[in-house]
């Protein structure tokens, strides 16, 4: 079940909402619209021919003018892996959560929220996962500027070399 077969199947369900397969570098994927995320993943997970039941990871990428979310799905029955991408606008990126379909998604979405600032609607427990709760800013963004101190603790480490 490689990416093209999956794409041809899925396009029938969501005409016009799914881009065609793009291959950049060694990875081929296709884009899908933000609104159809829940139904698309329901189809991908439960349709007999596909059964992509294992959500490997959700990667959030800051493309300077917009955000991108990369979903990677494994189908153990057919031994295949596919990648899907979606674009989110720069201001107030939000998308519906899929943690009710895949339990694994809950923590990956919390990490995307924590490091990239992407809000996942009706997520059961959307908290910062790695950074302390009162940390301002989302570090993985390209325009993130690190503050000088955090609660008075200096974050800039002075250059030792050359002074001693």
């Amino acid at each position, binding site marked *: 079940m490689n990416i093209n077969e999956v794409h041809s199947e899925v396009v029938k369900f969501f005409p016009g909402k799914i881009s065609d397969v793009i291959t950049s570098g060694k990875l081929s994927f296709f884009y899908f619209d933000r609104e159809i995320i829940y139904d698309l993943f329901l189809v991908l997970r439960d349709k007999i021919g596909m059964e992509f039941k294992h959500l490997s990871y959700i990667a959030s990428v800051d493309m300077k003018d917009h955000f991108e979310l990369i979903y990677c799905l494994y189908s153990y029955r057919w031994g295949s892996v596919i990648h899907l991408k979606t674009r989110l606008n720069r201001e107030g990126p939000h998308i519906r959560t899929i943690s009710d379909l895949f339990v694994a998604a809950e923590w990956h979405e919390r990490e995307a929220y924590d490091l990239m600032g992407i809000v996942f609607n009706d997520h059961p427990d959307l908290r910062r996962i790695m950074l302390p709760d009162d940390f301002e800013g989302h570090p993985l963004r390209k325009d993130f500027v690190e503050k000088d101190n955090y609660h008075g603790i200096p974050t800039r480490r002075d250059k*030792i*070399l*050359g002074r*001693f």
Partner: protein
Amino acid sequence: MSFSEYYNNIKNSVVSIFEGMAVTFSWMLRRPHTVQYPDRVEPSRPIVQQRFRGLLEVDLNICTGCLACQRTCPIGVIMIEVSKGAERYITRFDIEAGKCMYCGLCVEACPTGAIRHTGEFAFSVGDIRKLVLHFVNEPVKPYKPVKDAEPPAGKEVGSIVREIVNRRREGYTQYIPPAVPEVSSKGDKEST
């Protein structure tokens, strides 16, 4: 809980505990594996293997001053200053042993093998400022590799660092980079 299950529980636990105690008792009769570093070291078990990436060391006889190691170091732990002008001198070669992660990338990047890992690892100091290893005391002319001449005999691996390590007990003295010797204004070429 049927009787056979009850009996099996007892039988299994008695047999498996019996086996487990036989194993531990057999280990009581054997030689322990600990190497009692530092005072009772066994020659059969060396503390450090041959390719061990220990403290870094620079042999300035064969250093060409090409700054390759400074560029490849991911965390910028090496600092080299080469004086400009007609006569290029290496005036400073510092490695911050405290921050170095001993990954060995600089050793591979060095064309002549001047910077290399030694087997030394015991280098605890009282003052954090002494963790910076200074390899240049007086300015050194960078070595110019001649096409087929074999390089001058470099110092034995580990000897330079051992000097620094042995001096670690002295108090800390601020390191002043040596001044570059004045080349006479006419820039005549001394015989190098």
